[in-house]
């Protein structure tokens, strides 16, 4: 979903941008998108046990989060799953992106269907299907099952920036390498991978963010021993331990925002090349 750039110069159109409703609606929508999130951040500093009645500034919910064993255990589970799923999905996405360039058309259509499936099929359908499948072939619920399931839906997200970068590659270094007698492996290692590096890193960051934030699949696949942070937060919200949820949510929001900003900066590298 990276922004598309055009090189076509365009005059600013006074007429069309003057739609009074457009500007007002846009500002309202943008404010509306951030207001609920800012409120979560605001309430996270509220000392009151009732999150929504402000009685004074306090860091105590952050203190609570950092000293709660259950939360830390859930965080550890989330990180283990996210790190391994990120590595696996980025490698698999890279292989798919490179290999598909030379595939026959019918193979490519099939591959695209498989790769795109996690983006279009409702997550609940895949989650309960995976649950049934793992129980049938006797994969126990827990870390391994979670890693496999997360890797599957992270692949398309890791693939998008890799593919975008691949599409923008200049043919000259490849032609030069071929002319100088480099074999396929040398080209891959010395030219393709270094040129793709920012895309690979961006893909890995997106996969990491997606894995870390996942709720539905983890809810069904985690089993009792591998509860991830979002699953734990969902339980907290159900049992109404709200002020700590605000602090925890704030931390996750900051983390996701940082990851996305890193991806944004990596995409800018592409443009200045």
């Amino acid at each position, binding site marked *: 979903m990276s922004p598309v750039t055009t090189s076509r110069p365009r005059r600013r159109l006074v007429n*069309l941008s003057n739609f009074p409703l*457009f500007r007002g609606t846009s500002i309202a929508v*943008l404010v509306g998108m951030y207001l609920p999130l800012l409120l979560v951040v605001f309430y996270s500093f509220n000392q009151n046990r009732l999150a929504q009645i402000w009685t004074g500034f306090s860091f105590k919910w952050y203190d609570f989060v950092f000293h709660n064993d259950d939360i830390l255990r859930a965080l550890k589970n989330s990180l283990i799953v996210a790190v391994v799923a990120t590595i696996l999905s980025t490698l698999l996405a890279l*292989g798919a992106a490179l*290999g598909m360039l030379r595939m026959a058309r019918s193979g490519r259509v099939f591959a695209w269907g498989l790769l795109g499936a996690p983006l279009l099929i409702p997550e609940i*359908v*895949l989650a309960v299907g995976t649950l*049934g499948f793992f129980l049938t072939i006797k994969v126990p619920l827990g870390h391994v099952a979670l890693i496999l399931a997360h890797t599957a839906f992270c692949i398309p997200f890791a693939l998008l920036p890799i593919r975008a970068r691949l599409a923008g590659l200049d043919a000259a270094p490849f032609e030069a390498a071929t002319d100088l007698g480099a074999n396929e492996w040398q080209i891959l290692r010395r030219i*393709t991978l270094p040129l793709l590096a920012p895309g690979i890193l961006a893909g890995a960051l997106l996969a990491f963010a997606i894995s870390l934030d996942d*709720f539905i699949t983890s809810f069904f696949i985690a089993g009792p021993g591998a509860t991830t942070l979002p699953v734990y937060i969902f339980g907290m919200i159900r049992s109404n331990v709200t002020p700590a949820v605000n602090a925890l949510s704030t931390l996750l929001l900051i983390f996701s925002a940082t990851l996305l900003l890193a991806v944004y900066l990596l995409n800018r590298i592409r443009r200045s090349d």
Partner: protein
Amino acid sequence: MSKVRAPKSPGRPGQASSWLATPTLVFLILVILLPLLITVVYSFLSQPSLGTGVKWVFSTDAYRQIFVQEKLDGTTAFDTRYLKVLWNSFYYAGIATITTLLLGIPVAMWIATRPVRFRALLVLAVTLPFWTSVLIRTYAVRQILDETGPIGGFLKIIGVGNSYQILYTPWATIIGLTYTFIPFMILPVYASAERFDFRYAEAGYDLGAKRWTVLRRIVIPGIRPGIIAGIALVFIPGLGSFLQPDMLGGGKTNMIANVIANNFGQARNWPFGSALSVFLLIFTVLFVLMVTTGVRSRGDQVRLI
């Protein structure tokens, strides 16, 4: 075999042996395709009398249960409960699609007519929430809508807040869907609007068309691929939403995903949950095919992924 090769066409830069894609495809067949197939299989099995899972005995009961209720005295009656859930899913996802469309087109158009530098920032601002957890965003909406939240507090101050209750109603679900899915509408519409040549709009003005006419007859058709992609990207995942109806609708306004989850959880009826899951899958595939093939025949380029 490796004689001196004629300078063959260089192919696409970066291309490598197509075997490199094999592990990925095998993995996805195992972890995406087989689970979908097993869901279909499960939907034709029967419920064990004890515990979770399935009994490996063929049965079409799961599909019958969607429409027919078995009474305790052995008689059967036409059951509208699950049809209502299906209807709810379409209805809520549909209203959310219309709302995101009405809000998203102005935003996308406005961003597309800003100066280039400012545009990149605005796109980032729209994308940022898209990458944050749906769980946290839904929770944030819940906090806004709660009767003790800011809206309720404000209404109480001006003295009309006593009957305020929007959380745990269908409207809360719809607001939550609109909130979480609006980036899916804005981004593809923006991608089209950004490529749209606004000189056509200018030409329309020069020929004396009013603003509304230009918008309706020139601009909207010009960004149609983005609008269609946006509708698909909001409606299709919206149909399978779980968290928004669960956390905002309070379980009273179930959508199909909630019933599926319940049957794989407390209700312990996996064949029935699988049958509903197959229904949802079929609807999804039908919509994707409708969008991709229907649009191709009109000559538009719509990219869903």
